[in-house]
């Protein structure tokens, strides 16, 4: 285990050292005093274990492929952005755009998530123990968003594919999304997943999927009809 004191390092030095330690194969990297700084633990593309003791700013644990990162605190915007694989666990709440464009892996938020949670998501799982905000799952393409609490307005707006599960209330559905009844097996799997992540309760999840009415233009021009 190697400990790095963020208060003594610039962001550049810190990320450089984290990458070097991950390269060396250090079993655990602990970062203390993050002081909600932006861009911590960015661009690590190999498996490693990182523990951040405190709150982080924007883009924490983003552009990753492989690491397992736990953060004991809150996070600013875009936690876990573009995650390819690995797992990010946040003990408290995340700001806007958590897991934006993630393509694989898992992001767990122990508290609430802000607006645009799982926006443009392309794979993997985002699990929010609390509530999530406006435009959750906006234009999501693949993957799963599981919100144990309630979701704000315009849930799943313009989603292509993927699934949003919600345990509480839904402010409103967004354009081209609809409810679907989850199967009992699906619920049992979800509850098991909650248990694995230490989330209490067995919410009766509702499921939001794409209505697929915006998949195509309704009409084509005369010449297009002969070509397309």
């Amino acid at each position: 285990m190697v400990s790095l004191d963020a208060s003594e390092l610039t962001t550049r030095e810190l990320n450089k050292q984290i990458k070097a330690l991950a390269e060396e194969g250090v079993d655990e990297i602990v970062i203390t005093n993050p002081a909600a700084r932006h861009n911590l633990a960015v661009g690590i593309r190999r498996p490693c274990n990182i523990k951040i003791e405190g709150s982080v700013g924007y883009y924490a644990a983003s552009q990753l492929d492989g690491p397992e990162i736990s953060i004991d605190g809150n996070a600013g915007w875009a936690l876990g952005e573009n995650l390819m694989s690995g797992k990010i666990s946040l003990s408290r709440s995340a700001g806007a755009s958590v897991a934006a464009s993630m393509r694989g892996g898992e992001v767990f938020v122990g508290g609430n998530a802000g607006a645009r949670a799982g926006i443009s998501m392309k794979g993997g799982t985002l699990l929010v123990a609390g509530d999530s905000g406006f435009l959750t799952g906006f234009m999501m393409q693949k993957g799963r968003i599981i919100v144990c609490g309630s979701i704000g307005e315009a849930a799943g707006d313009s989603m292509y594919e993927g699934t949003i599960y919600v345990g509480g209330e839904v402010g409103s559905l967004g354009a081209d999304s609809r409810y679907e009844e989850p199967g009992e097996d699906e619920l049992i799997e979800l509850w098991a997943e909650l248990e694995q992540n230490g989330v209490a309760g067995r919410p009766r999840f509702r499921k939001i999927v794409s209505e697929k009415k915006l998949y195509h233009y309704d009409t084509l021009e005369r010449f297009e009809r002969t070509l397309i």
Partner: protein
Amino acid sequence: MVYGSNQIWAPWTVDDIHSKADLGRYRIRGMSTHQRVTHFDDLTFLSTGLTRFPLEGYKEQCSTRVELGGLNAENPLILETPIYITGMSWGALSANAKIALGKAASMVGTASCTGDGGMLPAEREVSDKLIYQVLPSRYGADPNHMATAQAIEIVVGQGAKPGTGGLLMGVKVLDEVAESRDLPPGIDQRSPARHPDWLGPDDLAIKIEQLREATDWKVPIQVKLGACRVADDVKLAAKAGADAIVIDSMVAGTGASAEVLLDHSGIPTVPAIVLAREALREIGLYRKVSLIASGGIRNGADVAKALALGADACAIGIAALIALNCNRDIPEADFEKEIGLPAGQCNRCHTGKCPVGIATQDPELTKRLDPDEGAERVANFLNSMTMELALLTRSLGKGDVKSLEPEDLAALTIEASAMARVPLVGTDKVFGM
């Protein structure tokens, strides 16, 4: 009886209304705007005479090498010619076209750029210098790919359709393209206009820092803007930390756009460069933050004029595709039968039925473009443009394209004088100043 032509209800306007009456939505096409705008043809160079002497036009050394994005990057982008190939997606273009463009760029020591669909591995293999785009859609976005790039480009807007995202009709979203973009095959893909993870310029500054951290501060981060509110946008992008700014004008090309955006948004290339130059000068970053111009660059003269107005380099799209054979009546193609328009007038890139194998994913049509032969043609064209640029530069008595300046130019029209901020020919007057 001979009638005059009707300016308001021209035949194409009548046809446009008929089409929309059938269609019930906006129309879509490729290529670029049909608007008449002030362009580089409205400027002329004041070459040497008795007041200064030229360099030997055909032979004497003239440097065309430029360095872009050196403000913060450990490894700036060094190009042997100030012309590179702009971002065009694998999806909008065939894999053969992307490979040919990458190869051509490598052959002449310049760069090509990915596009709204991520990085095609075969394109990476043949490209010595590849710019990796980060777009609002993030289709195919992969930090492993980004780490191999020679520059990163955050796309805020595109000149052909500023204020909106990409468009790719379902006929081009075939299996491989759909998979790389994580989309259902066959959907009419309408990409987001806003980035998922940042909204305003203050966020952009943090995003730029993130990309620097992800790429270890090695490569330049450039920001591409659709040319609209140029002065403010350029200042905000520079303040956010961009190493280079690309100004993509309203005459820039596209594989598919709503016509209403193509024809009714943005400003032309000439004023866009001048506004960007002055904006950078005002904040003390002119020639520190690199300025790249794109939109309607067709030949070495256009490049020379763009550089003289203040750009450090130019990016080309449609011109490179034309060199690749776009709109060329090749023996394998029957334009009238296959696309419904004669060669030379085609703008139907969005239909996916490109008769020359460029703007298509159809395996049979794609075979009509040999990537090696295509690369040869595009490399020849890039070399031709570079020679034209050097020829003009020498004729102005200069041995380096970086020495071109507004004082080398005069305007042929009052509008061009006002937009380029150079005197109207035959006068000492810069209109609008």
